[in-house]
């Protein structure tokens, strides 16, 4: 892909966007009077704003490019992440869990765990989340900076620092409210920026019917596009359920229906949408209980329709790649100019009489697999009529038999966007990155300030302690020095300071990951270990009053260890033992890495659940029913919704959303 140069209209649009989002930060700065205002918005935001921010915070650059990448590799089955995973989880959060998050007046999800159990469980969740959210921000920044370099030729550091500075300025001025408001703006930018690209792509392919027909051909011979070495039934890319029900060997994801529904649909999705403070924080900022409960439901409506914006581009890219007249391929991995130059030399010096050696030399020079037929054609053609280096390089670009699926979105933007629309589509990419980064930073600064820093001060540094008072008459008296919290202004400035510190740490992570790709993969693996069991802890905490603090703490640790051991004893087909798993011993080979992830989640959740229940039964409760009121389902008065309009009651709206989700699953059966 040749870098695109922007026109004055593009720069105008980008600049106007920066002015508007900084303006929002400035307009809100005067309302930031306390740490509560800055870190939690003091529960003041209307439902439609928190609802759209809920979805925008999740829609970071990784999600956007990642979903298109999955759409290309796995087809419409990628929509299971939304229609089987996200929507039911969001409805469950709204109807059953928000009353405890919001009603308990906890300032964060880990703080709920502290109120329900004790500090140990809170610290495990808060520490893991803090590290994860910063590192995820760094990973996202790294991906975006690389994509902008690919698309526009911008220097990596420029993209990283300029985007980060803009985000940190508006968060510093306006706190969580600023992040939430700009996320709503960014939501509209993502939809309105990418929709025309998707529309043009679908038109170019010939419409939905033509798209399905092209993908049917791909499914029967995906190796032609280096998608898979296997062959599948014709509907493997366009049917969400039939290939899944047929078994792991019949769908590109390589999973069975149980792993999909229970692993992804329940454990991973509920674990993310119901407990991840990045999204829950937006609902907790709502102005009242009804608004908080409706936030995930409002978010679920666009979420259900998002496959059209984020997954469909992946399908379109695959279909376009089958049409020679479109001059499009799924972008290959980034290969340096030096490597291309060596490969060009290899083509020019290759002898058609020793074709295999020539092809191997080209592949070695590029450092990638190649389509043998394309390279042999190139070598033969060049031997008869020598071509220019530039022509050979262009042909080699099309001969690389590996795909960089993350580059699909930028490649479609480059293919379909003239100046003007180009800036809008770029803004959609920027917006997705900024909303994700702002979400991560605001979640981090709240978790740090309240769950780690303030909690550490209260329980360790400044905890109440025994002391001896020496009276003026010389006598002594044993007293207890009580804990005296620091002023709220101190915590406000701690929140602001850690906003900058957190951003700098994220930037550091991005630089580190740009050099050590394996570190990025390793970190994401660690997060998978930690995230998998967490829903069991929250679920048992909210719905079983007998769960004890010791049970929850040891159950959570046990769940994490279950993830680690599962990974160490299993491997996906085709992988080698190491970072991919099986490093103790390979007890089970699973059909794919996706299947390995889903089954790991199932085992981790089950391990955490069983251990928590067993240890809770073996340990004494430390909190009375009265102390648990408002924190556990059976001890909390049910919220009465009967005074509200029927269709605005969370349970009713939730049911309607589930039915809509089922209808979508049937349409794409």
């Amino acid at each position: 892909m040749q870098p695109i140069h922007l026109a004055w209209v593009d720069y105008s649009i980008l600049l106007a966007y920066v002015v508007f989002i900084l303006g929002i930060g400035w307009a809100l700065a005067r309302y930031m009077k306390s740490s509560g205002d800055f870190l939690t918005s003091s529960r003041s935001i209307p439902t439609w704003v928190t609802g759209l921010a809920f979805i925008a915070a999740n829609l970071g650059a990784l999600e956007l490019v990642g979903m298109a990448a999955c759409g290309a590799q796995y087809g419409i089955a990628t929509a299971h992440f939304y229609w089987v995973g996200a929507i039911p989880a969001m409805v469950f959060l709204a109807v059953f869990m928000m009353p405890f998050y919001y009603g308990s007046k906890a300032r964060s999800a880990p703080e709920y765990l502290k109120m329900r159990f004790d500090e140990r469980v809170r610290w495990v969740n808060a520490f893991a989340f803090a590290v994860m959210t910063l590192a995820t921000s760094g990973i996202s920044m790294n991906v975006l900076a690389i994509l902008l370099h690919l698309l526009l030729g911008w220097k990596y550091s420029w993209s990283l620092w300029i985007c980060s500075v803009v985000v940190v300025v508006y968060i510093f001025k306006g706190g969580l409210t600023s992040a939430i408001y700009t996320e709503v703006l960014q939501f509209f930018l993502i939809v309105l920026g990418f929709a025309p690209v998707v529309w043009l792509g679908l038109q170019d392919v010939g419409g939905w019917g033509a798209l399905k027909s092209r993908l049917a051909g791909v499914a029967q011979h995906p190796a032609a596009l280096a998608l898979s070495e296997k062959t599948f039934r014709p509907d493997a890319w366009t049917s969400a359920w039939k290939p899944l029900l047929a078994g792991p060997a019949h769908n590109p994801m390589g999973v069975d229906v149980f792993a999909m529904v229970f692993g992804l649909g329940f454990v991973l999705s509920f674990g993310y949408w119901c407990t991840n403070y990045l999204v829950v924080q937006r609902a907790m900022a709502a102005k009242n209980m009804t608004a908080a409960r409706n936030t995930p439901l409002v978010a679920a409506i666009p979420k259900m329709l998002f496959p059209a914006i984020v997954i469909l581009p992946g399908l379109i890219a695959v279909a376009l790649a089958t049409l020679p007249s479109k001059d499009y391929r799924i972008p290959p991995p980034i290969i340096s100019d030096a490597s291309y130059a060596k490969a060009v030399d290899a083509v020019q010096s290759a002898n058609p009489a020793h074709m295999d050696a020539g092809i191997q030399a080209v592949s070695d020079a590029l450092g990638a697999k190649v389509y043998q037929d394309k390279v042999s054609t190139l070598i033969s053609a060049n031997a008869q009529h020598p071509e220019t280096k530039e022509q050979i390089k262009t042909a080699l670009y099309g001969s690389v038999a590996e795909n960089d699926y993350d580059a699909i979105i930028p490649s479609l933007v480059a293919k379909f966007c003239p100046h003007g629309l180009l800036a809008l589509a770029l803004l959609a990419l920027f917006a997705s990155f900024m909303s994700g980064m702002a979400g991560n930073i605001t979640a981090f600064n709240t978790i740090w300030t309240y769950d780690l820093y303030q909690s550490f001060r209260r329980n360790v540094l400044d905890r109440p302690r025994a002391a001896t008072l020496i009276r003026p008459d010389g006598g002594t008296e044993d007293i207890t020095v009580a804990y005296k919290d620091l002023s709220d202004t101190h915590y406000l400035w701690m929140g602001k300071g850690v906003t900058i510190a957190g951003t700098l740490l994220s930037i550091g992570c991005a630089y580190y990951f740009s050099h050590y790709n394996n570190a990025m993969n390793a970190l994401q693996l660690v997060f998978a270990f930690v995230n998998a069991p967490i829903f069991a802890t929250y679920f048992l905490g909210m719905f079983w009053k007998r769960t004890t603090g010791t049970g929850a703490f040891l159950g959570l640790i046990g769940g994490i260890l279950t993830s680690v051991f599962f990974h160490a004893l299993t491997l996906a087909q085709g992988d080698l033992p190491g970072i991919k798993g099986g490093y103790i011993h390979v007890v089970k080979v699973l059909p794919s890495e996706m299947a390995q992830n889903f089954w790991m989640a199932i085992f981790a959740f089950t391990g955490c659940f069983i251990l928590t229940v067993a240890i809770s039964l073996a340990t004494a409760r430390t909190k009375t029913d009265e102390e648990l009121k408002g924190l556990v389902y059976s001890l909390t008065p049910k919220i009465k919704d009967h005074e509200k309009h029927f269709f605005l009651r969370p349970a009713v709206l939730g049911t309607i959303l589930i039915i809509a989700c089922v209808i979508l699953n049937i349409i794409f059966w």
Partner: protein
Amino acid sequence: MGLDLRWPIGLMFTFFGALLIIYGAATNSSPMYELSLGKNINLIWGGVLLVFGVLMLFGAMRGSKKHPPPA
């Protein structure tokens, strides 16, 4: 918190829409529209953004009338 978000959203998209329409009109015969399958996508999508922006502003104005700022 005092700021009706429909104002900045409406203003921004009205600005983008107007800018794309003007640019689209000025570049109507440009070969760059071969990228967008021969359609002047700036004119078309600029119109969509303008309508969206104006609707947002309309909503914000109605909101101001219902809840005027304190004197």
